[in-house]
């Protein structure tokens, strides 16, 4: 069993072959006798790997505010988390529409804008009593 040399060989996948056109290495990467790949070859292999294989695309888990302020990562990636954003976006579009229509007057009725602004910030759905055709609504 003494000096018999054993070469472990792996074959590159088709994907890696396709991206290794600049390499003049053979299609096989030789492992050392102890089963480990040379560091230069390991580096080369890592460079050939698509980043998606190295960094798995898991759902986002980071947050930019602490949990004590209400940050909740348990619902990341779920539809209910989109609801406040969509509601707020629609309400803000209504405020803008109100301003565009009534801003032509010399003085806009502030109460109307104020009420809609408060509604938007409370994330409640607001009804546009003037016109329901919001051109800029999300498609």
């Amino acid at each position: 069993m003494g000096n018999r040399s054993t070469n472990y060989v792996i074959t590159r996948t088709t994907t890696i072959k396709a991206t290794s056109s600049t390499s003049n290495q053979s299609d096989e990467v030789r492992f050392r006798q102890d089963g480990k790949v040379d560091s230069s070859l390991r580096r080369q292999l890592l460079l050939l790997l698509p980043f998606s294989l190295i960094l798995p695309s898991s759902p986002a888990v980071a947050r930019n505010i602490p949990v004590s302020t209400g940050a909740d990562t348990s619902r990341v990636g779920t539809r209910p988390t989109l609801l406040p954003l969509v509601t707020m976006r629609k309400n803000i579009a209504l405020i803008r529409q109100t301003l565009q229509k009534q801003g032509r007057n010399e003085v806009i009725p502030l109460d109307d804008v104020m009420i809609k602004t408060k509604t938007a910030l409370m994330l409640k759905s607001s009804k546009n009593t003037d016109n329901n055709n919001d051109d800029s609504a999300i498609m």
Partner: protein
Amino acid sequence: MNERQTLQFGARNEAWISLDNFLSELDFYSSTTRNSRSTSNDSQESIDDMIKYLTDTIQAMDRDLDLAPVEDVEAVQ
């Protein structure tokens, strides 16, 4: 942190900055019109600024929503 989340954070921050600008402008407008210290020109300028800030907010929110799966956004709407 993945790239999509970074972009979403950026879009939300931009949306918040623009909305904050709008609220400040609205506050300024309401104080000046109630005290009758503003001219017609000032009022119109202030209204234009408010519309611009709201447009910026909407654009930033759209950038954020564009990063979410289309079917999810449609379902929520």
